[in-house]
């Protein structure tokens, strides 16, 4: 188990190298010049050239790539062109709101999706199933920003229960913290929940037809021990897989959600960086988020052994 985990961890390195290469090259060769943005509308060509030189933007591709890669090995993602501060520092500063947001979104998604999927499978073809799957289709196809504005309109503007926008750290008290996060986390979690609910339903349907479920009923077990102890554990692997893969939807959703709800997190940092052509920041963020995604999927893979005793590492 431990050696398997280590091997898998090592296997992440080539993946990250490729990601780094792609990210760097894409941005390098994409149109748009940060020096132009920095210099402003009225800058003369000389001024722009001076800025390019000062930022090192005029040096060749390979030199910059090597420099950047070597820095990352030391945890140095370079400096932000716009802020003039280290990218690592910027990301660390913005990490917490995003972490809380995605954690809460994940919890919402699981709390919503698992019961929906389980009940839909148990009541397959009947009203609860149709309702749950209807929700899943709507949740999956509604754009994140539309859902975000709808929720803001309903709960903040109309009912006045929750703040419209902004972020408060946990140190400001539990309710201010949570009340600012509920709507964004819901917004972010719904697509994820729709994904998980559908897989949960199909995995449970598959399990419910198995002979051992008939045995469980023949023992006199009640509904919940049957669904949870006997069925869910056997359905866990496809569910965990989609929890891992679907986390991509959370990462991409973070950008829009933080913008809609004005949360100073990694997502906003990314949007701003893109608008300002702040390449080092974009590169750093993409690299770190890819790392998070890969790691989460590694944890998911390692969790399989918990659910299926036939899996040995």
């Amino acid at each position: 188990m431990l050696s398997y985990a280590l091997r898998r961890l090592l296997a992440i390195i080539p993946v990250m190298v490729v990601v780094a290469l792609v990210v760097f090259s894409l941005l390098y060769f994409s149109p748009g010049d940060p020096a132009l943005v920095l210099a402003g509308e009225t800058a003369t060509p000389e001024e722009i050239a001076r800025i390019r030189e000062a930022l090192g933007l005029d040096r060749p591709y390979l030199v910059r790539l090597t420099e950047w890669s070597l820095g990352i090995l030391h945890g140095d993602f370079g400096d932000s062109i716009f802020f003039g501060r280290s990218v690592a520092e910027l990301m660390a500063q913005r990490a917490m709101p995003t972490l809380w947001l995605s954690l809460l979104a994940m919890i919402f998604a699981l709390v919503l999706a698992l019961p929906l999927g389980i009940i839909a499978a148990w009541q397959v073809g009947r009203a609860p199933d149709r309702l749950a799957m209807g929700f899943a289709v709507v949740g999956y196809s509604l754009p994140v920003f539309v859902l975000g504005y709808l929720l803001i309109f309903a709960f903040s503007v109309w009912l006045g229960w929750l703040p419209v926008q902004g972020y408060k750290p946990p140190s400001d008290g539990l309710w201010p913290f949570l009340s600012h996060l509920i709507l964004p986390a819901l917004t972010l979690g719904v697509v994820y929940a729709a994904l998980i609910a559908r897989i949960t339903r199909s995995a449970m349907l598959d399990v419910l037809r198995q002979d051992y479920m008939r045995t469980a009923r023949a023992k006199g077990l009640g509904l919940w021990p049957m669904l949870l102890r006997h069925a869910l554990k056997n359905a866990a692997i496809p569910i965990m897989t989609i929890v891992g893969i679907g986390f991509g939807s959370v990462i991409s959703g973070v950008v829009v959600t933080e913008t809609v709800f004005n949360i100073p997190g990694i997502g906003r940092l990314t949007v701003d960086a893109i608008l300002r052509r702040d390449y080092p920041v974009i590169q750093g963020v993409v690299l770190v988020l890819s790392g998070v995604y890969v790691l989460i999927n590694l944890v998911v893979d390692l969790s399989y052994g918990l659910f299926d005793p036939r899996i040995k590492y």
Partner: protein
Amino acid sequence: MALLHVDNLSTSFKGRKGEVLAVDRMSLQIDKGETLAVVGESGCGKSVTALSVMRLLPEPLGRISGGSIRFEGKDLATLTERQMRRVRGREISMIFQEPMTSLNPALTISRQITETVRLHLDLDAAGVRQRALEMLELVQIPEPARRLTQYPHELSGGMRQRVMIAIALACDPKLLIADEPTTALDVTVQAQILDILRDLSSRQNMATMLITHDLGVVAEMAERLVVMYAGRMVEQGKVAEVLSGPRHPYTAGLLGAVPKLGSSLTAGPRKALAEIPGTVPLVRAPQTACAFAPRCPLATDQCRTELPPVVQIGGSHLSACWRTEDVPGMAIGAAS
């Protein structure tokens, strides 16, 4: 009074092409401690009868549409699901044909035995574990303590079926329904499993409804025999009586050549049911004639138009045939 009295049971399934009457006014009785064998060709409704008694039909597609299932005074057909849960695993247990897939692959053997015990018996944690261990010993599983911590995939088919028996008998049920418990196992393992079943049922004074295709098993294990055809009882009686003197042409056909009574289970070739030309018809409405008539060498116009009544041939020997008097003289199925 019988322990289980299935009376005029009808069970139907909704299908794409309309309803199928898998069991059509079926009756049978099992006394306390008695072993009743149920035989019949594939598709004649044996499993559906058993599942109806356990109320394990795939509702709402399959449902009991008539009759009663009286067990110790209560009618199982009308119990609520909640009431039925106290019967399953406690009063009536069931083991299935497929040992490879009937245990939950994700739970330990210990978990799968103890959950039944915990559910139905009032024992403390140590008592529950003790009971699980004891059951594994009773079904003659070597190294029971180690087996408890294992998962089904670490056990062979024969061992898994022993575990199924251990689970089924853990709460001392009054009735065990065994639906072809050895069909999926190889011959030597079959004999061991049957020995264990017979031994435990007499030790716990438990009644058994044994569904089988194997007349050798019937002769060895059962006191009485019910023969089913197209969802109905066609003949029943003491095993010796029915096997040596069948009084329904269908039974006579199944026997083909009757196995010698008392022949050992392990020695010699075993007797499967004989082939009868034709197939079991799919029944869609309550039968109004003898369903076997199209395949029966003795069939008359009466057989084809009127449902034969159940007649008593002597003692407990019953037959549902218009021509039951003529069966002993039939060319096929002569008794040895």
